């Protein structure tokens, strides 16, 4: 039996029932809709409570699709889906597990600037007491203080907390400028006030 005849027999017997999924329409029931594995790297989702605005995902993103954006005093961590490569690297790097790659992938838009193309979390910023410039997200400040507490043993904890209270209200520049005066400065015994 020549090869084409064998192929025809196989085609009629095995391949005449189409394996086509009924994708855009759900009329044929869920099973034939489309098979999506649970751990698919689809559209990322940011959890508002957990995100502390630490920009770890921005430093890790190889395509720079995640960008921190200042919008009228608020920090907006924005993933621009038109440039995102869905690689899941930010999900690994996020210290707070705020980003989750959902198996959702359906997205076809007519205009690139539609809200569906952006995954955002907005955080309000802590303002520097001295120069009045927003320098860090409040949540990140609070969270880093909690992290600090976990690591320090009990005895020193309240003293450190007091120092931290003094330091936390200034932005890095002001802190550097005024740090000598603060009694938390390591070499404060060297510096003599006004000398």
């Amino acid at each position, binding site marked *: 039996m020549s090869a*084409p005849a064998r192929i025809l027999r196989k*085609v009629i017997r095995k391949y005449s029932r189409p394996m*086509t999924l009924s994708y855009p329409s759900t009329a044929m029931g869920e099973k034939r809709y489309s098979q999506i594995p649970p751990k698919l790297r689809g559209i990322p989702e940011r959890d508002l409570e957990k995100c502390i605005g630490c920009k770890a995902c921005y430093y890790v993103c190889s395509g720079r699709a995640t960008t921190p954006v200042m919008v009228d005093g608020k920090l907006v961590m924005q993933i621009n889906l038109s440039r995102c490569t869905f690689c899941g690297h930010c999900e690994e790097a996020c210290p707070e597990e705020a980003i989750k790659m959902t198996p959702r992938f359906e997205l076809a838009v007519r205009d690139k600037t539609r809200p569906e193309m952006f995954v955002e979390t907005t955080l309000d910023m802590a303002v520097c007491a001295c120069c009045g410039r927003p320098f860090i997200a409040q949540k990140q400040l609070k969270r880093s203080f909690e992290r600090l507490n976990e690591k320090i043993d009990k005895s020193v904890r309240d003293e450190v907390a007091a120092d931290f209270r003094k330091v936390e209200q200034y932005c890095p520049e002001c802190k550097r400028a005024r740090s000598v005066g603060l009694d938390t400065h390591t070499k404060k015994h060297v510096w003599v006030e006004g000398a």
Partner: protein
Amino acid sequence: MALDPVLTAVGVALIVPISLFLGVIYSFLLRKITARLQWRVGPMVQMYSDLAPILGRSRILQPLYDVLKLFGKETLVPDVPHKGLFKAAPYLSLAFAVLAVFFIPFPGLPLLSAVPYSMIIASYLIIAAVMFTIIGPAASGSPWGAIGARREAELFLIAELAFVVSLFSVAYAQGTLTLWNLAIDVGRPLNFVLFAMAGVLMFLAMLGKLHIKPFDIPEAETEIVAGPYTEYSGKYLGMFFLTRVFLFYGLVGLFVAAFLPPLSSSLLWLPVYAAAAVLLVFLLSAIHTLSPRYRIDTALVSYSKLVIALGIASFAVALVLRLVV
């Protein structure tokens, strides 16, 4: 049989929509059966219920929609010296295809096939329809068009040889050149041997003329962009596709008329005619699914060997039938 003008006039007016509809159904069947043999669904007969309002209820008339869409599109004409010929070719090839349909009997509608020598006229019209798909692209000035036209001409040689030899061997055996007489009398039982052989020959000719897979060499889109139709767009391309639809109906009608005599003689035979046509389309799509494309030179060699051998054999049988029996 005298030609009463009234009946033929009605027939002629009636046959154009019928042939268009049947041609579209045949091409749809070809696409659908090919798809089902390739493990997929193909144009859907019954569109999904929730998509129907947007994308239409059913796609049986898909070839018709393709043609209508092409008529609705803007037409780009290349800036070549002989633009007139480029534009005229589609009109002429469509005209000849429609004319050819008039000479092919439909069960119950003898049309002009009762005119003496109607077979010769029908075959010449079909030849002319295919001829203009060669002349038009040759004038299109693009290297792809030129190569496509040359391949079409080379293929045309062999397909034409098979077409003519099969028709005339049957005509010679029956002793008449009018298609209607052929379509009516079954003649001697021995004819079936001749009908079978000439039928296979005609089948090969149809493969060549309708660009079915082993011989769709002119339109090999992966080798030469779109073959002869590279430069055509919009309504000219639509006309070429319409020619193809009418040719499909014409060739199937001719096959049934010449080689399965009683079928297209009267209205009673219509269901059998339809069954024979569907079976023929199924065979065509099976061949279409199963064979890759020949290269033009190997195609000419292997195709012509087969065609010449069968041609001589069928003429011999026709000779025996005509003289001895």
